[in-house]
């Protein structure tokens, strides 16, 4: 446990009428620094929030933006929902895999990128679209993967 987490926990708890509600903001804040949530981190968060490990693990596994394995510096989610699929998300994913030399679900050897698929991200107007870290980016034509990778995306 990092020393500052104690304070983050009390700050998060103070923001909500029910302390339990602070769980996800705290998880996000910790993940932002740590990059992912290890078993130890989950245990620490459970202790900080006074809930069971089981509870924290259920929450972490439910949401696709919490990572239970180490990820690269940038996490690319490719939307594979219906609109994006019709607009060519398959090909986009394929091109990204070829360009990064990894398969979906993997992280590049240099730790720069992690490539994941996402169920519908509710931005069909941007189809085919991706989410880089926490930002929506699209539409991206399948052949424009280099543009995507070079794009400056505010975190």
């Amino acid at each position: 446990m990092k020393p500052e987490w104690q304070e983050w926990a009390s700050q998060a708890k103070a923001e909500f009428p029910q302390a339990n509600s602070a769980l996800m903001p705290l998880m996000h804040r910790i993940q932002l620094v740590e990059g992912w949530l290890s078993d130890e981190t989950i245990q620490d968060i459970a202790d900080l929030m006074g809930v069971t490990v089981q509870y924290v693990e259920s929450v972490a596994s439910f949401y696709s933006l919490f990572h239970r394995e180490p990820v690269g510096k940038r996490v690319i989610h490719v939307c594979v929902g219906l609109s994006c699929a019709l607009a060519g998300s398959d090909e986009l994913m394929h091109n990204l895999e070829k360009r990064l030399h990894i398969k979906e679900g993997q992280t590049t050897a240099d730790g720069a990128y992690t490539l994941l698929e996402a169920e519908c991200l509710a931005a069909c107007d941007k189809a085919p679209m991706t989410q880089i870290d926490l930002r929506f980016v699209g539409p991206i034509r399948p052949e424009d993967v280099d543009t995507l990778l070079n794009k400056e995306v505010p975190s």
Partner: protein
Amino acid sequence: MIQLTIDGQEITVPAGTMIVDAAAKLGIDIPIYCYHQALGPLGACRMCLVEVEKMPKLATACTTAVSEGMVVRSKGPAVDKGRRGVLEFLLINHPLDCPVCDKGGECYLQDYTFEYGPGNGRFQEPKIQKLKDGPINEFVLVDQERCVLCQRCVRFMGEYVGEGQLLLEGRGVETVVTTVDHVPATSQFTGNVIDLCPVGALLSAPYHHKGRPWNIEREESVCPHCPVGCTSKVTAREGRVIRMEGRPIPDREWGWLCDRGRFGYDFGYHPDRLLTSWVQGVETSAAMATRQVGQWIQETINQDGGSAVGVIMGGTHTTEEAYQVQRFAREVIGTENLAISRSEAGYLPRALNGTFDDIKKADMVLLLGSDPYDAVPVVHLKLRERWLRYSALKVIGIGPTRLTRDTLPGQDVITAPEQSAAVMALALATQRPEDANVKTLLQALGDFSPSGVSPETLTELGVQLLGAEHLVSLWDGMDPAMGMVLAVLAELREKPTPILPTFGPANWRGWERAGFSAHFEDLTRILEHARDGIIKTLLVFGADLMNEYPDRALVQAAFDRLDHVVVEGVQPPEDSPQVDALLPGATWAEVYGTYINMEARLQVAMASVQPPGQARPVKTYVNTWAHILSHPLAWEEDWEPFDEDSGELLPLHPAPLHVTPLKVPAAIDGDMILITGALIWEMSEPSEILLPRIPALPGRINPEDAKNLGLDIHGGRMRVSQGETSLVTGMSLDPRVPKGLLWLPQRMPGVNTLQPGPIVLSLAKEEVTA
């Protein structure tokens, strides 16, 4: 009370009742997966849809509470359509592998699909594949493809047991039941999720692919391993016990079992089981051995009279068997030297004995030296359920270690070893100094003041002891003085003061009912008389005295001196060359009989299988011996342990109160002091299935002591020395044990070679294996 109509029938139920329970009272079955009365409503599975008049849509019967004048229809086209739809969804990713599923034939998904489900689904896409037969732990397997996500298992472990070791991981169709961090679940109660699982997702590992409902026979039984006597069902196939399940009894038992009881059913098939007879180290026929023993008894009676024979009862014998032995001993041999193999010196008169129903009414629970999680696990669950329903429940542990737990919180009064009784008496004296009984108790204590317990604590404890409305005590039976203090307490309080004895053997109350003395002094006297040559022949039924009696040296001396030691049982006693005859006995599940549990409740266990090899019931032995002794016993009528007046509980006999002054507890000097306690894993007959869960590090010491002694933080092996004797055993670090103490399970082999008191602890040198 609320009146409503279900399917045209009127019923009146208390407010807050769910429709599903009201319907059950009318005998109307509403299909459910997620709902369980012990866990409360959830509404996750949507299977229990019913039509409620004036409600726009179908309602879930398990989450809708009854209201006045409600009209419910549990059948009809709308309900059928709703349930059909739910089942079609539940089956989208189900593998439909019923032909190879252990639950096939006893599965609610099968039953309800047959009753309400669609003939086939419209979903054409490939099914999602998940983990099959993955481990929850050594005993429980999970098939995630068959799971309907009802969450019974997750909620049972998390909410009811309080050990959140199972969880739902993932989202949507990808959701699976798994263990936290994917490490095996270690709770004492994991096996219950097999009974709770309404489908084929959670399976018993030892029963995996062992039988189907049409291959097996089920008999109602009682778990024989500890004094709780949990109601259970035994599954047998082709003359072999292959499973044990819980047996719920409406309004009394949920049917929970602990893992030790549920999976320890294989002791009858242990490779060491005694299947043939042995006389003086030579294997022989059953007839020869029985005749030889009969002659020894005859010789002893001829030379020294019947009272030179001692009879000791133990093991998993039923009340009826004890009665048969008792009649043989009294009528044929003519001896009064009858005792029960006990490990603790205390005794509880029937008059003070409470029932599990008392737990449901308790406002305060005293744990007197007894940690129910370790000693009588299912009682721990009962206490926890009371605490969940009545959060003001006060739990107070009194003993040398912490006895409350995270799952059963309360306060602890940590006393020095062997001072608990004095602490209780002094606490009473703070409130009732003038009471004659209290005065007698304190008479000899002088100015004794208990170490580590302040006068304020004593006063507070005294106030609570007398103030509680319904005070339930769980007592480990270690110190007879505590029994006396409890009797005084019960007399002093004019409110219910039920006591539950957590000590064994499991059926000691039954053997007492049959005519055996349950007093430890009587057992000790028989052993001393044997050592002194007054008793010449000892007949031991089921008991392993060498490990059960707390002072092994006395048993050893008695066995050395006795002319004849005859042991009937399931397991040959370890390393006992003094045993002259070993007779294989029939055991639990092989004989019909009654067990009487720690509530003094009589419960019948049916026979499921035949005894193997030469193993035979006790009655066969005593009948043969009675013939040899020319005094055949007539058994015209079966003796019944039941009593006309008492029903399921043993009749109450008033116990006169004899109060004697408490002795000043002897000061125990030493840097490390040994104390012992009950641990369910180390009790009763050994099982092969349980081996992977028997604690490798059963000893417990304080982490600070461990650090000072150089013990690894994850525990390790240590040598416990006391004078000439020593024992090497695994130790774990436990902050519940105070500094300066070592806790060992009292029934672990070898522990009774040491006596509670000062010991020396050192790291065990790693043994070099060639």
